[in-house]
């Protein structure tokens, strides 16, 4: 199909007739500005080809002009299979349709609508205002160029028929897709997208059931195992209970205990008798000990009386000798103390002399410094006096260097002015000849020989009395200036108290001399360590001198001498005094030691003597006390009585000890007693343990019995059997579902695989046609097509999802796919125009040139109509230029 011409009237902005003719078979470009009506023309072509003429759909209503009362008329002329067809449709008002073939009307009204579809190979649609068929794929509306071309059923039919002729039909493809979809739908009941059991799905529930019943079974098994253990335990306890309650065993143990207790009672009786005999023996023993003790005490008393009497006699002999020793010692101590007092007096005298020597030594030192102080005082007083005089002179000289400099400056100005005035003044020259000598006066001075000088002030030349010639220089401003400077100099000289500059300089020189003298005096004072006012230093020096004199006078007075001794004399005497002191100290120490020893000796002698006296007193008291207890007259009788008592007690004790010994030999010993007691305890404990065990056993049996009855009552055995069967059922169900899922996945994967392979084969023709177009823009790239020719991705260096590409790239690929589809259809005789309405809006400069190449390539096989408002951009496209002629232009 090739569009040849288009005429519209009452369509959109074209209220009156507008024509486009001269369509070529290749690339056609209609370039016009915005709102020129390009899209209107595009919609008009679509409506003319695919809409029923009597349609009242929105698309058709939008087609009409707002201000036109005419019907919207579209007439399209196209070539198809070598014949020229003209389809003309009037919409909205007085709708009509006619189709002519090579100028002959072949259909009208509804037949005309459908005849066009038959020509284009489309099935008539019902209720559709605009067909979304094959041409919808190839026609790209404004703003729709980036949309992926997804053909509708009719479009697919055309493409399919084109492809089928090359590769054969894709039989069962739709059924396979349906099967895959159905399986997928069922699998989604079981699994998530990541093939995990879907929450609340059958598989998930089955797994949950298995886990639930496994847990229940484990719990029931645990309970049953516990019950089994309880049964075994109970059996053991019952056997133990039977053993403990065996009458024969209990009787034997009881009999043994009775016998053991009897034996122990016998042993206790013997032990009690022994304890009584032991008490009797102990009593006899105590009586014997008492008699023996009384006898010993009596003997001790008599022995003590005798001994005391011997001690008394001895002390009486020794005591006088001891008193004599004490007297002698006290006399020696008195002598030593006197010697110590003598040494103390010598030490005091030595100290007094040493103090005198120290004072003399200090005075000697001060006397040596006294002359220095006197000389320093003299120098200080002289320098202070000079400084005072210089400061007084300086105070009267107020002139400064600046004053002199200022005077000099003024005098230099005056000299300059004088030179200037002289230069400018008339020159007076007088030659006095011999006759005039003495007669000619210039001013007040007498002129001699010659006189030559400039006249800078009125000058009188007196020639004797002949004439007085007054020469007055001409007025000059320099004179006033000079007078002013001169006055200023005079004022300055007066202010500094001088008459001339020479006097000023002399005064300045004098002031400099005085300044130099003052610095020299200050330097001298500094050598005397005076930095400030020398008066205070002078006063302090005088005070030091007076103090030195006083110290010397005191030292001489103390020593009672007239003159100070020399240092050597003082040091010699100090040495001698030191030797005397050392000797004195040694002697003193010796005497102190002697005194201490004598005192200690006296103390000992006194103590000994006192001890003797005390002892004598005690001995005498003891003798008196003891003899009071045992008078010498009764000693013998008492001794005999005590001896008799001891003899009687000895006899009684021997008798009791014999009886005790005899009993001990026949009674059970302690070890035997212990054995009998242990046996009784053991047997009693055994019986007690048996009873305790029995109580504990019965308690445990009761507890176990309760537990068993409770568990049995709960029907744990039935629970376990039920849980086990439930678990097995759940496992079977889970396995069944898992197997079902595995089968479904296998089937889905197999059918999907076959479908993919078939589709790959089926789409190859499209790809083949697409490849040259694609390489124009994307060399080496391959497109991935999905169901219904949908573009799913592009493979360049790596696979890329179509929707993730940039808008521009998506648009370019979408246009290329349309070109390829049209190319394939054209190859099979189904030539269809590709109409691009304001497409390629996202192309950069490079891409759009490549797209132009692709469009030109497509134009070699099919008609390409490009509608654009970008005149400059699309200029390089070339192609055939279309123009819209409205009726007024065409006349």
């Amino acid at each position, binding site marked *: 199909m090739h569009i040849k011409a288009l005429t519209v009237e009452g369509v959109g902005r074209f209220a009156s007739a507008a024509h486009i003719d001269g369509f070529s078979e290749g690339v056609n470009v209609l370039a016009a500005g915005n709102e020129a009506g390009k899209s209107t023309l595009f919609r008009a072509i679509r409506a003319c080809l695919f809409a029923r003429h009597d349609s009242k759909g929105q698309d058709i209503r939008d087609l009409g002009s707002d201000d036109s009362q005419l019907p919207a008329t579209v007439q399209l002329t196209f070539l198809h299979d070598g014949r020229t067809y003209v389809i003309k449709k009037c919409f909205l008002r007085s709708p009509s349709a006619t189709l002519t073939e090579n100028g002959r009307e072949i259909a009208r009204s509804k037949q005309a609508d459908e005849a066009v579809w038959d020509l284009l190979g489309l099935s008539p649609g019902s209720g559709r205002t605009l067909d979304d068929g094959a041409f919808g794929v190839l026609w790209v509306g404004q703003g729709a160029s980036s949309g992926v071309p997804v053909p509708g059923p009719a479009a697919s039919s055309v493409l399919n028929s084109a492809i089928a002729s090359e590769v054969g039909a894709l*039989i069962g493809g739709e059924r396979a897709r349906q099967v895959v979809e159905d399986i997928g739908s069922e699998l989604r009941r079981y699994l998530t997208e990541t093939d995990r059991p879907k929450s609340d799905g059958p598989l998930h529930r089955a797994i949950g059931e298995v886990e639930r019943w496994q847990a229940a079974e484990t719990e029931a098994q645990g309970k049953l195992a516990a*019950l089994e253990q309880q*049964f075994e335990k109970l*059996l053991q306890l019952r056997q133990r209970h039977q053993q403990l309650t065996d009458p024969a065993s209990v009787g034997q143990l009881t009999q043994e205990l009775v016998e053991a207790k009897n034996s122990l009672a016998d042993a206790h009786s013997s032990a009690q008798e022994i304890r009584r005999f032991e008490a009797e023996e102990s009593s006899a023993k105590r009586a014997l000990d008492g008699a023996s003790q009384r006898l010993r005490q009596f003997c001790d008393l008599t022995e003590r009386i005798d001994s005391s009497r011997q001690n008394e006699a001895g002390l009486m002999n020794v005591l006088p000798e001891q008193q004599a020793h004490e007297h002698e010692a006290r006399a020696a101590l008195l002598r030593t103390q006197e010697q110590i007092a003598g040494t103390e007096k010598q030490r005091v005298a030595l100290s007094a002399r040493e103090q005198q020597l120290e004072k003399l030594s200090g005075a000697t030192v001060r006397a040596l410094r006294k002359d220095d102080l006197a000389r320093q005082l003299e120098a200080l007083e002289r320098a202070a006096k000079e400084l005072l005089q210089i400061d007084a002179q300086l105070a009267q000289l107020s002139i400064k260097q600046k004053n002199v400099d200022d005077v000099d400056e003024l005098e230099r100005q005056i000299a300059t002015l004088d030179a200037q005035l002289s230069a400018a003044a008339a020159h007076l020259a007088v030659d006095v000849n011999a006759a005039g000598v003495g007669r000619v006066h210039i001013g007040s001075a007498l002129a001699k020989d010659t006189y030559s000088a400039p006249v800078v002030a009125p000058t009188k030349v007196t020639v004797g009395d002949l004439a007085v010639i007054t020469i007055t220089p001409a007025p000059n401003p320099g004179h006033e200036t000079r007078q002013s400077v001169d006055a200023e100099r005079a004022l300055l000289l007066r202010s500094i108290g001088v008459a001339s500059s020479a006097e000023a300089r002399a005064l300045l020189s004098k002031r400099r001399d005085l300044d130099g003298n003052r610095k020299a005096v200050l330097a001298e004072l500094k050598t005397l360590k005076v930095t400030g006012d020398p008066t205070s230093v002078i006063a302090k020096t005088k005070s030091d001198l007076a103090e030195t004199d006083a110290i010397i006078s005191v030292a001489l007075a103390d020593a009672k001498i007239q003159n100070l001794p020399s240092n050597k004399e003082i040091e010699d005497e100090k040495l001698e005094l030191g030797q005397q002191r050392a000797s004195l100290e040694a002697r003193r120490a010796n005497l102190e030691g002697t005194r201490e020893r004598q005192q200690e000796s006296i103390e000992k002698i006194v103590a000994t003597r006192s001890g003797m006296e005390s002892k004598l007193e005690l001995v005498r008291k003891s003798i008196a006390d003891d003899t009071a207890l045992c008078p010498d007259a009764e000693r013998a009788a008492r001794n005999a009585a005590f001896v008799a008592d001891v003899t009687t007690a000895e006899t009684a004790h021997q008798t009791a000890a014999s009886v005790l010994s005899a009993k001990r030999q026949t009674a059970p010993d302690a070890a035997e007693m212990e054995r009998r007691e242990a046996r009784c305890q053991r047997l009693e404990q055994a019986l007690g343990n048996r009873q305790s065990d029995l109580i504990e056993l019965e308690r445990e049996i009761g507890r176990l019995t309760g537990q068993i009855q409770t568990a049995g009552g709960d*029907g*744990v055995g*039935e629970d376990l059997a039920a849980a086990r069967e439930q678990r097995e059922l759940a496992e079977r169900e889970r396995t069944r579902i898992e197997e079902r899922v595995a*089968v479904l996945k*296998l*089937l889905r994967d197999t059918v999907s695989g076959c479908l993919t392979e078939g589709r790959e084969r089926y789409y190859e023709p499209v790809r083949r046609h697409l490849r040259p177009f694609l390489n124009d823009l994307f060399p080496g790239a391959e497109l991935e097509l999905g169901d219904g020719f949908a573009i799913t991705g592009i493979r360049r260096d790596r696979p890329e999802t179509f929707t993730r590409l940039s808008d521009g790239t998506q648009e370019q690929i979408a246009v290329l796919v349309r070109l390829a589809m049209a190319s394939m259809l054209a190859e099979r005789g189904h030539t269809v125009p590709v109409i691009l309405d304001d497409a390629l809006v996202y192309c950069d400069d490079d891409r759009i040139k490549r797209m132009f190449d692709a469009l030109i390539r497509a134009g070699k096989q099919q008609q390409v109509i490009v509608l654009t408002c970008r005149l400059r951009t699309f200029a390089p496209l070339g192609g055939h230029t279309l123009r819209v002629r409205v009726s007024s232009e065409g006349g």
Partner: protein
Amino acid sequence: MRFIHTADWQIGKVFKQFGSKEETLRQARLGVIERIGKLARENGVAHILVAGDVYDNEAPNSITLRAPIERMKAFADLHWHLLPGNHDPHRPEGVWDRVSQVGLPEHVHLHLTPTPFLLSDGACLLPAPLRRKTEFDDLTAWMDNAATPPGALRIGLAHGAVINFASEGEASNPIDPTRPAKAKLDYLALGDWHRTRQIGPAVWYAGTPEPDRAGGQERGSALLVEISGPGAPASVTPLFTGTYRWLTRTERLSDGSELPDLDQRLRSEQDLSRLILRLRLEGTLPLAAHAELQRRLVDLEAAVFHLDLDQTALIARPTEADLEAIDFDGVIRRSADRLKTIADDHAQGAETRRRAENALIELYTRVVDQQRHGEAA
């Protein structure tokens, strides 16, 4: 002397695989007690000997515990002699102590110790109760020296596996099959084996009165035993007591032509609604026949009380016609061919092949069956 010998009631057994029908089967086990009681009366029997496993386990709940006793109370004119078996051994405070504590009527006798028990009509019962699930000694040995009144019949009552039959029995509790001769027994009533079986002239397993598993006896039964006097041979007559039949069938299929006949044979079984059928199918079937089989099985399952189907040994082999029915060409057909290749590939694992086979059946069902149903609709 007439008595009924029964065993293995296993009251309280659970049947979870039957789902909502479980309780029906549990009640059927209790109902058998009443049927035995009625049969005893009909046959003039005074004593019913239960040779162990009255209960399915030794920790039944309190209802299960009481239920059989309550059934027996309705037959106070009969003496019920209950013996602990390996499922319900007698242990202190175990199931039998609980039964005792519940309070037994006088005509229900528990034989919990190996002690001779004089039956009312000149016979002496020598019971050998189990005290644990597994005994390694022959508990009937005591019968050899058990003293009984002169002229009294000596009837042994035991539960366990007869020696040389242990591999078929449930427990190892051994019983010497020559015990009647050694102990001069006139009859040895045994339990444990869920199938009525005579072991010797006077040694019988009664079987269970209500079957509970596939592969055992089909119909529940008890034994009516009549002994005219000491040393006389026992006359044993089976009495059918069961409500449900447990039938196991294995059928081989080859091309599907057997299906109508198989269907008819299975449906000709008596009391289909009380039939518990375990059906194992073997052989190979074309896909069309396989689909037909599945439809018939759905119908059969609705007809019987329960259908336990095992098709693991049944292989689906698609024929060329099956594959053409799927499609002559195209994606679906290629998918079917690919699955068939996997299923026929003996280098693949059994699970992979089986899975491919099932996938093929699934494809056939989805494509062909649904298409037919769509056409039919």
